[in-house]
């Protein structure tokens, strides 16, 4: 077996490594807390983070050992999940990108426009290719959501320059 396939079959080790790093991060943060203020009460603000951090490190090691011994986390099944095909990480990256763009755009252009782009972009990334129907549904949904939340339900969303014009 080549090293590459060996690693691919044990990609969960990477997850263990992430947990380990997270544990180290929590521990470092707990140990660098301002010591003067920790005196109040028998248990200071650092105690629980220390326990959680140690727990993360221990679990990371145990999880990695489990993987090396042949244990595997069972990938979650679902109604629209097809586990027989290899994972399509390109779609996931595209979706994450569209979502980040929404986070950046919502301030400057307002919810109706940014929301429409989010829906259209996500539908496109997921494989929908209706040139006219997709943007129309996106725009309607976004505008309707804006009106229902902002005007009817009293949950404020930014209208942006477009709503300023209307």
């Amino acid at each position: 077996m080549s090293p590459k396939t060996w690693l691919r079959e044990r990609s969960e080790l990477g997850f263990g490594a992430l947990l380990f790093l997270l544990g180290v991060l929590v521990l470092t943060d707990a140990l660098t807390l301002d010591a003067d203020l920790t005196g109040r009460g028998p248990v200071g603000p650092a105690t629980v983070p220390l326990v959680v951090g140690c727990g993360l490190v221990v679990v990371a090691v145990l999880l990695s050992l489990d993987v090396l011994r042949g244990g595997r986390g069972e990938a979650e099944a679902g109604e629209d999940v097809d586990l027989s095909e290899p994972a399509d990480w390109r779609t996931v990256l595209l979706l994450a990108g569209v979502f980040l763009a929404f986070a950046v755009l919502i301030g400057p252009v307002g919810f109706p426009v940014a929301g429409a782009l989010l829906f259209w972009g996500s539908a496109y990334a997921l494989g929908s290719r209706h040139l006219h129907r997709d943007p129309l549904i996106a725009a309607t949904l976004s505008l309707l959501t804006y009106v229902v939340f902002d005007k009817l339900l009293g949950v404020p969303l930014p209208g942006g320059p477009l709503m300023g014009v209307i």
Partner: protein
Amino acid sequence: MDSLNSLIDGFGTALTPMNLLWAAIGVLLGTAIGVLPGIGPAMAVALLLPVTYGLEPTGAFIMFAGIYYGAMFGGSTTSILLNTPGESAAVVAAIEGNPMAKAGRGAQALAAAAIGHFAGGMIGTILLVVLAPTVAALAVDIGAPDYLALMVLAFIAVTSVLGSSRIRGLASLLIGLTIGLVGLDQMTGQQRLTFGSLQLADGVDVVIVAVGLFAIGEALWVAAHLRRTAGEAIPVGRPWLGRDDVKRTWKSWLRGPVIGFPFGAIPAGGAEIPTFLSYVTEKRLSKHKEQFGKGAIEGVAGPESAASASAAGTLVSMLTLGLPTTAVAAVMLAAFQQYGIQPGPLLFEREPDLVWGLIASLFVGMVLLLALNLPLAPVWAKLLRIPRPYLYAGILFFAAVGAYAVGGEALDLVILLVIGLIGLGMRRYGLPVLPAVIGVILGPAAEQQLRRALQISDGSVTGLVDTPFSVTVYAVVVILLAWPLLRKVIIRRGGTR
């Protein structure tokens, strides 16, 4: 009798036209979202949370109760007609319900499920009315060490009962506890894991964690493995039951709650175990054993009734102890916290209008569910044909709306995405999501109780176990932890005999 009077007052609250309207909207929205494939009750409740932000608490929770029951009912419709349940509680409904639908008895399966939900929910809610005030009265006297013990029990129960791997459950819990640590320490105001960011000093909102793990995590995970051809839903007419079917199922409807309610009230993972137990019981007691696996109607009726009753049981520990035992209850607790209301023994004294209005609206919601869902079932079935790109784009869209509505911060959206990516990783490597959500919600509370208990005992660890209650709870924790070992010993003894 006291609770009966309170309940009547509660009906006074629930039956005002406005609250009745919220209940109806909640039931309809909950069912519609719950029917959509890939959306379980927890995600439905998390996604619909922002809808209630603008309402006053009573109206919001009445709507919420409708969403909860509606989403559960919608979930079983999906399993029966599509055979690929999105949530564990509906797995059993698919085992018998889908073969029934394939054999052209979908209408009967849906009716058995709907009436099962109604019966289970009614009996469960009556038990809630009877038990909750008593539990609350008993719980008023319990102190910090007892609360801590209960929370430890919840942590251990969700990590070791659920899922196939304890170490992965524990990893999930620790991820949740870590997210819960972010922000200012409640007692000293020290910044923890904030990395100097002002926004992180407020902590990560529980709603964002719930939406991130349930909605974004799920949408991204499905996106990575999207089925090229969506499963074919079986068309169905209006649900109805013949006299023979009623004769076969009425006992199952009544047996379900007996199994479901107790399991819902204890932290053992909600409806998963009781639905399965109910299924096994129905199979053993049935006169039509040969039909099981091929579409036995009792196998739909009993488990669905058990699931609904367990949802009511969940509310007992959630309302009286502030202890969520399922993902939906966890999200509901987050909703309470949004309004600055802390569920617990004092809730019944401090907010009687709200609590009894909520309980009364559970009854109202169930009647509405039965009245609306039997005639509307063919419409709900059409929702199963929604193109998948639109469905998952819609989930991302509404998750974004919900996260933004929490505080109007664009940074929350980035945090939402990061938590969603964590949720994706957890699904990939078989980490259950529930322990993480419980960790985020109960972690800070448990820490506070721990420090309070130790302050009272002046730092002595014995202060954590100085009440009979806490000792009992820790004993249960030890049994849970030692169970795999105990089982081995028992099996070995049985073998040598």
